[in-house]
């Protein structure tokens, strides 16, 4: 139990640091009224908006009221369209979740089987081919892959739409773009994890009991090998959110990423702040869940954490 509490405490500290960091970075980087209001507006109007948005208070008072508001679930008002910032962001979540979820599914469906094949037929031509493809896959910048896909499938063959999110056809290219790099990474992690497991004594036992290759791999090796792969997946969620910004921009996919680039361009402080907090929270939560699942699956982790503490 102490182990779970320690993890929770650590996650809370991280979250607190993120909230503080976000606040100071955004507040110290310029006066939003200079950007949002027209140039010719008079000083009185400027002061009025500063007071309205709470920008005239001392920094540290702004900080405490910011924390207080956050604890009450109040993320502020979007400067640009005067509605609840959280609502603006929340409306975009399903689109990004759809894109990210599909990309993860693609990455798992392609990456895991390839990694297993490469490990089972280690050092064969199959292994070398799969690993070479993997190196190509994760070296490919996804904005470049996206542009190549648009060139081929939208402009040359004219079979897929290059932007928007209306139909299932719109999802194919962005999800493939976002998923490719992750499929490659998962293939690599699966391979090394499988190779590790395949050399374990219990695999020899399974073999001596007369279990066939398929059964040994699917029943004995894969469940054990997939634990570290799931861990990696949790850690990579944050990286994926970063790439999603680029992918959404390339394909004009109306998710969080596109909202972020436009909010950043118009200095919509509350929206940017809300996105950053939400993403950081997602990452901390994902890491938490992975830690807990990992500790639950592997008791050694729990004992290790207690010994450290």
């Amino acid at each position, binding site marked *: 139990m102490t182990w779970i509490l320690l993890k929770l405490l*650590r996650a809370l*500290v*991280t979250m607190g*640091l*993120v909230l503080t*960091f*976000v606040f100071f*970075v*955004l507040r110290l*980087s*310029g006066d939003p009224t200079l950007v949002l209001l027209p140039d010719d507006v008079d000083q009185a109007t400027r002061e009025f908006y500063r007071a309205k948005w709470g920008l005239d208070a001392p920094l540290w008072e702004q900080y405490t009221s910011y924390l207080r508001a956050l604890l009450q679930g109040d993320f502020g008002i979007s400067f640009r369209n005067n509605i609840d910032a959280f609502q603006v962001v929340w409306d975009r979540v399903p689109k990004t979740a759809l894109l990210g979820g599909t990309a993860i599914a693609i990455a798992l469906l392609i990456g895991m089987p390839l990694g297993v094949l490469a490990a089972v037929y280690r050092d064969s031509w199959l292994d070398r081919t799969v690993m*070479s493809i993997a*190196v*190509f896959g*994760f*070296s*490919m*910048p996804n*904005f*470049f892959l996206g*542009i*190549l896909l*648009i*060139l081929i499938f939208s*402009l040359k063959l004219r079979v897929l739409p290059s932007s928007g999110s209306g139909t299932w056809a719109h999802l194919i290219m962005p999800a493939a773009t976002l998923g490719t790099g992750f499929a490659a990474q998962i293939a690599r992690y699966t391979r*090394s994890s499988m*190779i*590790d497991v395949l050399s374990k004594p219990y695999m020899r036992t399974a073999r001596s009991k007369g279990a066939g290759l398929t059964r040994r791999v699917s029943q004995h090796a894969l469940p054990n090998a997939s634990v570290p792969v799931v861990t990696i997946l949790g*850690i990579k969620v*944050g*990286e994926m*959110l*970063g*790439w999603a*910004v*680029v992918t959404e*921009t*390339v394909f004009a996919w109306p998710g969080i990423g596109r909202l*972020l*680039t436009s909010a*950043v*361009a118009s*200095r919509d402080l509350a929206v*940017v702040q809300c*996105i*950053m907090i939400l*993403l*950081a929270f997602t*990452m*901390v939560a994902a*890491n938490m869940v992975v830690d807990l699942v990992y500790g639950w699956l592997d008791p050694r982790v729990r004992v290790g954490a207690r010994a450290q503490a």
Partner: protein
Amino acid sequence: MSALDRPALPARRWVWLATLSRLPVMVSVAAGFMLLMLFVTVFAQVIQPYAFDHVDLMNRMTPPVPLAGATWAHPMGTDTLGRDLFSRLLVAAQTSMLLSILGTCLGAVMGIALGFLAAHKGGLWDEVIMALVDFQAAMPWFIIALAILAFMGNSMAVFIAIMGLYGWETYARITRGLVLSAREQGYALAVRGLGAKPRRVYLHHILPNIAGPLIVQLTINFPNTILFETSLSFLGLGIRPPMTSLGQMLGEGRDYLINAWWLAVIPGLVIFLTTLSMSVLGDWLRVKLDPSLET
């Protein structure tokens, strides 16, 4: 040098050549490409046929050489303002390489120093540094970088600082672990027993012994740093005109995909080949320098 050493020299050179010829083809090609990129980084201004920002409105959007309408005056064609694409590519590659090298080195130095500090001081220092590592790892750094750049404006110093902060935590974590285990090994204990100061033990004895995994980490981080820079510049938040970088060129070329696909594809290809070469080299080095990582 004594006379005895002399005959050994040709033999040693031969060994070098033999090692080179035994390299896998992919690794040789990757190393060759990285050398070419380094050459461009140093000599871009010397080999460029035109100034990278020289506008020639009479020769706009000429295609690269194998295509119809191309001229050898502009082997890779020109962009929307008639600027020579080859010259721009050289300067862009130089900017991207310099930024990535600088960013990687800053991150490595900072991370390694903090890793040593955490291992050496222990206690509260260790806790605080590791909390910072957790914090850095938990933040969507790309997204924070995006916000900082947009709000702080177009400043080279800010951009370099952000690049330097990217990835430092991986070095810190690895260094700390390596130092903690190296400190208890025979050689470190022996040197300490002889009365060496901590600084001497760390810099002259432990650092050379743990350099292998750190160099491997450096080669793993470098392609990521290139992607980090090019992605930000691609979104229009990193390197901005009048300067140019590979990501900035690609972002600009994206608007002309229908008429002039090469404006985006050529810089994209250079980015891809650079990260690919570095990954191939990194994989190879990992096997060579750090057998414990290879499973």
